[in-house]
Every structure is written in C-alpha cells, then in structure tokens.
C-alpha cells in the first residue's frame, strides 16, 4: 500500500504545479466533461456530453422541476403549461414575453432580439430539415401534422425553404403563441419539448454563421460563450440580460433538511462564471476533484473501494475533507450492440443468443461497476413502468455450455466458419478493459473479436453511418417513460436515429406504435413489459446493466442535486467562497 501513496503523491504534485492559483474573489463553477464535444448545435446533440453543454446556452419550452421527484415538467420559455385539446392532439403554448437572445454580432446592432413564437417554428423546422441530419429527428418523426411533408418537400428541393410555413401542425398564431397539432395521440410529446433538440435557435445566427453555427452558440440561456474553438476548456459567462427566473421554493421531502432550499427565491443563475474542462480519462478527472479543481465528480472504479465503505458511506479521509456522497439509481442501460445491417446478425438469432449467453454480465458488474449496478434483463430500467423485477431473461444467464450449443446450431460449431467480428470502443483505459473482457468472454466459445479504438466523435460518426459492426453503448433516459428505452430498437428509428442496432422487426414496430399512443397506467406498463421481454429474447443487443450514480461533491458546492435529466441545472448551483477558502487547504 505504501507504493500506492508515494506514486500518487508524485502525480498529484505534478497536477498542482501546472495549474493556476485558486481565485477566491469570484464565484466560479468548475466542472468536467468526460468526452470531446462536437460543437454546440441543439439539433445534433445526441449524447449527454454535448446536451449538457448546449443546455447552458440554449433553452426549450419546458424543463424539469429541479428538486421534485418523481420528475415533473414545468414551463421554461413557455409562460405556463400548454392548453391541451380534449382529443389530446392540439397543444397551445403561450411563451414568456420580453425574453432576449444573447447579445451577438449576428443581430442588428449586436443587441439580442426578443424571442418570438416563430423561433420555435424555425428551430423545429431545422430539426426536420433532412440536410441537418439531426440525430433527434426520431423524436418528432411522423408526429406533427404536415412536418414530414415539409421535410420531404424540401429534401428534393435545391435549398431548404424555411419561409415555407405550410405546416398545419406547427404554427405561430401570434408573436407569443405557438400551436402544435399531432397526427395521433403521443403522450410523450411534452417530454420532447424539454429536450435539447427542440431548444430555441435564432434564424439570424444560423444564417450569419452558416457552417460555423455549431461553434457560435446564440441562445436565451443563463450562460453565454464566445466562439467554441475545439480546445479542452469551455468557458461560460452569465447572461447579463437573463430573464427573471428564480430558484424554486419547494422541493421533494427531505430537500429542506439537506439545505437544498436555502437559495429559494433567488434570481438565477447564481454563479457568474462556469469553466468546463474536457477530461476524457477517469484518473485525471478524479485527481482534479481531489485537489478541488472540480466541484463534483463520479467515482472511478479503481478508487471505489478506498472511497465508499461497504455500508455505502464515505471513508474517513473524505469525511474529513467535507466531501459528501450522493447515491441515486440512474435511469439508464448499458448494452453491446449488434449492427443488424450486417447479414451475419440480421437473420441469425441463435448466434446472437449464443454470444449473449457467453457474456459474463455479473462478473462485468463486479469488475467495472463495483457490484453496484442492476443486471439488465430488458432495456427498461427499474423505477419506470414496464420494469418487471421478477422477469429473468433466459439469454442473460451466463452459460458457456448452452452458448456453445447454440453457436453450433447457428451454423458455427466451436466458432468454425465464423468471420472475425470487429468491436468498436473508445480509446480510454476502462473502455479498452471492457472490450478486452468482451473479447475474452467470446473467445471462450470460439468467437474471434477484433478490438478497434476510437475517440467519442469518431465512434458516434461510425454509428450514425451504420459502419460499426459491434460496439458498447449506454443510453441515459431522456424522460421517465419506457418508450424512451424501447424506441432504441424501433425500426423507423434506425441510424442516424437512436436505433444504432438498426434492428427492424415488423411485429415489434406494430405493437410499439400501439402502446406509445396509450395513456400512462397499469395496462400500458404491462404491455411495455411484455413487449420488452419478448424482444429482448431476440437479442438485438447483449444487455449490460442499469447503473447507480455515485456522485461526490465538495462542501462548497451548494444546491447540487443529482438528476438523470440534469441538462440546464447549472443555473441552480452555487459556490460558498468562504467554505471553499477554508476547505481547499484540507485537500
């Protein structure tokens, strides 16, 4: 154990000597992001990393209540919750008056203009514009009256005509009223208006910056940033013209005791500056947290044992430093994708079942998640309707003998005749270890895996272009509804949509389309569960786990509450400078 501390000290000393001295005069939030950012264009934020960044600058009609659980939608740029017609098809929103876009040279005189209802029409047109290849199009595909027709009309035209406003289901009735008409009931519709894809974008900025728009974000959000230059640091300043938004004065039971309501009624955002460092590797991120260079952080797997006690408390070392631990089940699923474009997987269910049986998921939970995750049986995570804790997926049991048998039945006895399969992953240490673990598991039944490493943007591009044969992924829920997890294998959502498996089964598609129109309730949950179970046995993916989030935060970070849908929550966070001055020296 001695070696550990000595070696660590060496690394720490290095980290300290290359960073600047802390500034205690001004409140600054120091955050990290674990992947490179592709740019800040709302219509192309298919991953949680870029969604987080986009949500600091841009806003949508709705947002989640910061404190209340279960999650509750509340107005953001909307003045109030929408009026919904009796048939559930027409949604009419009033938007807030006097909301200004950030001051930017794309506007006349450099002054941000007022947000209008037509900005939402434009922003949703951008999402539907086939030329933008939005990774979020699946969300509104075939949902809004006339939107698909508009998309098709413009797809073949020489140039997308944004002045063509003939979309019966998407109308700005006046400057402050917007109306959506749906083709069929879609209870999840409101969730999509809280997601980054539908955030309001000013047409002036898109036209002024052209291709560079993604590096020049202009929104209405609490923070603004200059031109994004693909560096490893993103810097945000508070928007001086931010509208009157206040910290909530009520929360979930227990929030008051945790001090989460001390800022109630204060004008947001609470901190003037946000600095986000891109640190893809776990260990530098961890070391930055330990030295107080970031305000909160997850716990790397290799540091878990020395940080969290067996009864899920914090070890003394951290307690002394005032660090606090927050444990929350996350609404997510990790999975290994079979690309069904590949004829190898398209028609050979037994091959996929064999590989799934050969994957030792319980061991993976121990090695990579410190045994804190729930082994997935279907894509639906615990905590939402459609999760069935009594169901056991017969192909998620680790059984090498049965796997070998199925592999032989699939036509590849002992793997003979089966070509080498490429597994794409990230060039990060833990990702490589997971890939090696998968390779090792598959080798046991004679399936040969070749590992190929990528950066995050490279991997997402490959998936979007349907070029990755197999790869590991995680899906964080966009909203608390099983639909959001099952749509990952819905045929019409194939790449560039979120169905990266390109799984397409007529039976599944039909039943899924029916259930999603149903109102939430017991019957819907049961049908979700049945559908999820039936098709998980077709193995569109090798299922992984539903993770539990372990977040450590420093004593000076105020108002932090973990949320799966944390986009835009940065405006609620605060820094206690006196506390920071006192505690930083103890680190």
């Amino acid at each position: 154990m001695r070696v550990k501390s000595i070696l660590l000290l060496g690394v720490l000393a290095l980290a300290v000597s290359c960073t600047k001295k802390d500034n205690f005069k001004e409140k600054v939030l120091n955050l990290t992001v674990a992947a490179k950012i592709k740019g800040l264009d709302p219509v192309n934020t298919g991953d949680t990393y870029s969604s987080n960044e986009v949500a600091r600058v841009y806003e949508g009609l709705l947002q989640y209540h910061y404190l209340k659980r279960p999650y509750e939608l509340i107005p953001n740029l909307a003045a109030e919750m929408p009026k919904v017609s009796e048939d559930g098809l027409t949604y009419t929103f009033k938007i807030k008056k006097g909301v200004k876009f950030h001051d930017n040279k794309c506007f006349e005189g450099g002054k941000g203009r007022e947000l209008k209802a037509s900005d939402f029409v434009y922003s949703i047109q951008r999402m539907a514009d086939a030329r933008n290849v939005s990774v979020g199009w699946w969300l509104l595909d075939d949902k809004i009256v006339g939107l698909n027709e508009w998309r098709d009309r413009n797809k073949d035209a020489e140039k997308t005509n944004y002045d063509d406003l003939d979309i019966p289901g998407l109308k700005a009735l006046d400057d402050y009223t917007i109306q959506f008409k749906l083709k069929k009931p879609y209870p999840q519709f409101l969730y999509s208006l809280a997601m980054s894809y539908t955030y309001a974008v000013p047409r002036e900025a898109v036209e002024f910056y052209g291709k560079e728009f993604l590096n020049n974000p202009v929104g209405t959000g609490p923070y603004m940033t200059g031109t994004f230059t693909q560096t490893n640091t993103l810097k945000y300043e508070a928007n001086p013209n931010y509208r009157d938004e206040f910290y909530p004065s009520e929360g979930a039971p227990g929030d008051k005791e945790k001090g989460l309501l001390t800022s109630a009624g204060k004008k947001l955002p609470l901190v003037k500056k946000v600095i986000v460092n891109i640190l893809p590797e776990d260990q530098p991120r961890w070391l930055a947290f330990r030295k107080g260079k970031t305000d909160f952080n997850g716990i790397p797997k290799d540091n878990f044992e020395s940080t969290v006690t067996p009864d899920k408390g914090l070890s003394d070392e951290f307690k002394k430093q005032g660090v606090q631990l927050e444990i929350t089940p996350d609404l997510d699923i990790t999975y290994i994708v079979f690309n069904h474009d590949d004829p190898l997987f398209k028609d050979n269910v037994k091959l996929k079942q064999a590989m799934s049986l050969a994957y030792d998921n319980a061991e993976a939970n121990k090695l990579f998640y410190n045994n804190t995750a729930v082994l997935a049986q279907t894509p639906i995570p615990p905590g939402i309707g459609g999760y069935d804790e009594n169901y056991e997926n017969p192909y998620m049991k680790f059984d090498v003998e049965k796997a070998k048998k199925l592999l032989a039945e699939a036509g590849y006895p002992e793997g003979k005749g089966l070509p080498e399969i490429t597994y794409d992953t990230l060039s990060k240490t833990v990702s490589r270890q997971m890939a090696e673990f998968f390779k090792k598991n598959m080798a046991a039944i004679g399936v040969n895996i070749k590992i190929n490493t990528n950066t995050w943007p490279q991997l997402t591009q490959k998936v979007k272009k349907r070029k990755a044969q197999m790869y590991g992924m995680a899906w964080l829920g966009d909203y608390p509804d099983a639909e959001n997890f099952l749509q990952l294998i819905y045929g019409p959502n194939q790449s560039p949509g979120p169905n990266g498996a390109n799984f397409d089964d007529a039976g599944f598609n039909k039943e899924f389309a029916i259930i999603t129109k149903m109102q939430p309730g017991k019957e819907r949950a049961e049908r979700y569960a049945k559908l999820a179970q039936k098709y998980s046995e077709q193995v569109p993916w090798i299922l992984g786990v539903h993770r539990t989030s372990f977040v450590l935060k420093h004593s000076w970070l105020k108002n932090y509450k973990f949320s799966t849908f944390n986009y835009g929550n940065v405006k609620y966070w605060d820094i206690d400078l006196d506390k920071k001055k006192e505690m930083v020296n103890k680190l």
Partner: protein
Amino acid sequence: MGMSKTEVLVNNTQASDPLKGKSLWIDAWQRLKKDKVAVACLIIVILYAIVAVLSGVGLIAADWGAEVGPSYAAPGADYWFGTDIFGRDVLSKVIHGSQVAMSVGLISSLIAIPIGVTLGALAGYFGGWVDEVIVWFYTTFSSIPQIMLLMSIALILGKGINTVYIALGLTSWVGLCRLIRGEVMKHKNREYVQAAGAIGAGHGRKLFKHIIPNVSHIVIIFTSLQFQIAIKSEVILSYLGLGVSGQPSWGTMIDDAKLELARGVWWQLAGATLAMFVVVLAFNILGDALRDALDPKLKGKD
C-alpha cells in the same frame, strides 16, 4: 522470431564480403568482447530475443489470456508477478509483451533499413540533383513531428500491430539515410572505388559491391539504436490507445496501471517498466559499444 532474423542479416553482410569484411568484423568482435558490460548487454538482448521467439512460436506464455487466479492477486508464490483485472498472469503478459516489443523493433528496422540505405547511398553516390531531391525529401519528411505522423498513419491504416510496424518503419529511416549519405560521399572517391572503376565496374557494382559493404557497420549500430527507439515508441503508442490492441503490450499494461495504482495494484506497472527498462538500457549500451568497436579510427587503440 526476434533475434534470429537479425543474425541472418549479420551473416549475410559477412558472407557477401568475405575477404575485406572479415578482418573488420572479427576485429570488432574482439574489441567488443573486452567490454564486459557490453557483453552482458548482448547476452540480455539475446535472452530477450530467445524469450520473444519462444513466445512467438507458442512455447511459453501462449496462455496469457487464461484466467489463472482471482482479479488483482498480489505477487507471491503462485503468481510471481501477480494477476491483472481479469485474473490473468502478469508474468505471461510481460513475456508476451516482450514478443510484441522485439517484433516491433525488428520489423520496423527491416522496413527502415532498405529505405534509408538505398536513398542515402543514391544521394551520396550520385550527388547533384539526385542528392538535392533526396535531401529535400527527407528534410521535409523529418520536419513533420514524428508523433503526428505516427498518429496520422495509424488513422489511415486503422489501428493494430501491423500499423505500428509500418508507422515506426516509415518514420525512422531519416537518421540512417543521412549517415549513409555522408559515408558514401567519403568513400566514393577513395582509391579502392577508383580502382574498381578502372577495371570497368559500373555505378551499380561500385555502389553495391564495393561501397555499401564498407559502410554497413553503420547499419548494425543503427539497428541496435532503432530497436530501443521502436520499443519505446510502441509503448507510447499503445499507451495512447493508438497501438497494439487485443493482446498484451507493455504500453497497454502501463495504461491499465494508471487506474490500478489507485487501488494499490503496482505490479503491472512494475513488470512492464522493468522489462522495458532492462532491454532499452541493454540496447543503448550495446549500441554505444558497437559504435566504438566498429569505428575504424579506434582500430588498434585500447
């Protein structure tokens, strides 16, 4: 497979020049023998080569992928070097890593030597515009930072051990090319070359039959230094995730260790760095000793 090919190389150069070369090589060997440290280093290198060959043909460490014990078992009687995250024997991984390292050194040298020798010899021998073109080419080439070049080659060819061979081979010939060019320039007006010309030898014969065997000791020195550069580069590339994947290499072991140190697992780092340290040091000392031994100016001096 590591050393055997190098030996073949040495034998070939000797065989191609039995009369003139012999005395130089024997003399060099006798001088090298007196340097105890150099001999020790030579033995170390040969041992690594044997280990690499045995591992390559599957006689030892073939089962590096097998789970032999619990995850992260400390070094002890059962596992001398401990086990890794999947319970694989770290010693086997170190041995397999030496195969990767030695093969990278060997194959990258085999790629770099023909390019460097040919271009250097042509530039030095013909001079004029040939020289200018070649010098321009390698100056331009070497102005590209090596790590950038390695990364772009890895991105074009896809990642994997073959890419590492090619990338390191293609980026390391410039130094050899410069040396050979200078030596050939010196030699081309020497009497023995003029004599060969007088009895009717053409350019090709003068260059390949007479001059190159007389500058070939540079290749030997280059190889011993290139080996250790290639080994280090492979480790760096694999550490950065651009190199070997799917099989153990010292680079990926050090990459693993970056996280494992946090839980007190130091043996992967120790195993890989120790193995690398010893072989790189041995090659370095051997390279220096060879330079002294093969330098004709030091002939007869002790």
